[in-house]
């Protein structure tokens, strides 16, 4: 039964994608603009870039891996900084009220707006890491704080009556209890961080990376390759998101909500 639904879902998906590509092709034909390639041209460009590479010789897989590597580093740093800070801020309301006036305006500054500062203060890989970090940091931080604040005080009291010290309470009660929120913060943060890759790579510096690929071919006015890059970014983002979702479902079997 579930099987049938799955197959049906896949068939429907294929059908709608087919229709989508068909309409796109029709529009491309009717406009006949050199700047709006149809799906067939994009497919050709995809094949070309995947195998023989771009104008500098880098292939699509190598662009993708480069971007994934950068995002992984920036995201890793975001996790390593935001989770401990979030736990700390969640535990101490005084730290929270002290840092809110600083953090709140900063979190509404888009990552791209940090580009000029990052160009001046950082270079090389660190700049990518910084720009992705700044995108991923706040979702993780805010979710961690929320998760920590939602820790049931009874559980903390329970541990205290067994003589647990505060580091035990943090690691064995507060952290596991906040973990579902932290994970969903990580998921959102990874999504945002991934979306910062184009911003991070548009500054330039290196010829590799999906964002760079897009900008390179936008400058060459070869929109088919630009679309290849966009689709690659969209699909990788999707896959990363579902990856974490799957981990969440595995990890939090004990949560009734996740099961439902």
């Amino acid at each position, binding site marked *: 039964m579930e099987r049938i639904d799955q197959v049906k879902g896949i068939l429907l998906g294929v059908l709608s994608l087919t229709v989508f590509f068909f309409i796109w092709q029709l529009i491309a034909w009717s406009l006949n603009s050199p700047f709006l390639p149809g799906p067939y041209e994009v497919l050709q460009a995809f094949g070309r870039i995947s195998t023989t590479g771009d104008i500098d010789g880098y292939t699509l897989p190598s662009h993708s891996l480069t971007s994934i590597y950068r995002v992984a580093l920036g995201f890793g740093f975001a996790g390593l900084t935001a989770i401990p800070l979030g736990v700390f801020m969640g535990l101490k309301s005084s730290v929270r009220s002290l840092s809110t006036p600083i953090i709140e305006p900063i979190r509404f500054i888009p990552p791209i707006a940090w580009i000029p500062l990052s160009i001046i203060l950082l270079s090389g890989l660190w700049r990518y890491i910084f720009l992705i970090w700044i995108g991923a940091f706040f979702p993780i931080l805010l979710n961690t704080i929320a998760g920590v604040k939602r820790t049931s005080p009874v559980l903390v009291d329970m541990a205290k009556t067994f003589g647990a010290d505060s580091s035990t309470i943090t690691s064995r009660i507060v952290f596991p209890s906040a973990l579902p929120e932290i994970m969903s913060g990580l998921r959102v943060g990874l999504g945002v961080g991934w979306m910062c890759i184009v911003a991070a790579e548009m500054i330039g*510096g290196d010829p590799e990376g999906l964002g760079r690929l897009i900008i390179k071919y936008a400058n060459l006015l070869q929109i088919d390759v630009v679309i290849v890059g966009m689709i690659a970014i969209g699909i990788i983002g999707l896959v990363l998101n579902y990856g974490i979702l799957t981990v969440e479902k595995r990890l939090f079997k004990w949560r009734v909500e996740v099961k439902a």
Partner: protein
Amino acid sequence: GVIFPREAETVRIGHLTGDLHHLALFVAMNQGYFEQYGLKIQLKEYVNGPTLMQAFLSGELDFAYVGAPPAISARAKALTDAKSHLPVVIASVNLEGSAIVTREGIDTPEELSGKNIGTPGTGTIQDIMLSIFLRERNITVTKSPMSIATLPLEFSKGTIDGFIGWEPAPSIATVQSGAHVLLTSHDLFPNHQCCVLVVSNKYLEAHQDVVQKFAQVHKMANQYIANNPESAKQIAMNVTGHSSEIITLALSHIVYTSTPDPESMKTFLHSMIDLGVVTTVSHDQVDAFINAFIDTRFI
């Protein structure tokens, strides 16, 4: 006004960020030539030539000061598209005016091999000239495309070993960060056409009179630069905010002239076809293409 309502007589002019090649534009504004000819102008600034040309094609600009190669590749790409605004060259802006600067220890072109060299973006005239040069010499480098303002900065931090860029970027690096000029664009390609003044073919059809006036303004401005080098330099310093030392050095690399040079544009186009930057024009179409691209009636 918040949305920039477009009045009929206002001409929209695109130019590039901090580009001394466009000194004629700043001189014309400074000297009030546009007002003199009854032209109201609106300036629009872009990070590099390809980006400017994308906006140009979609009809966002009437005139533009831009490098010849981006204009050529945009025209080549959009030639078959009736809706696009195709660029038509009505005057030259300058010849030469770019340079490759490098750090100590890179003193010959061969020593570029394997180094990390910045460019102001894929498809810019500097990028293309560098590619041509490297191909001829059979040298490979890692190209680092970035915005023009970033080039001297990254050089000073040591992220790149050198770069090619339009003035005053090479002169900034020379004066501020101890770079030296490895090759000027004169060495790469003597007397090559650099920036051109283009007008949209649709605009040209509808407003020949305005185009005529604009060309006149442009010619006057270039003459002013030739006749008054000191005050032109002052204008350049005011516009860019750079020191006299930088501007003097930069201006010494630029040749301001209003007469376009079709031959060097043909050479560019041949090379761009070879590089794979232009895919819609073949070598035997180059002459016809460039002839249609340039309209010298107004100069």
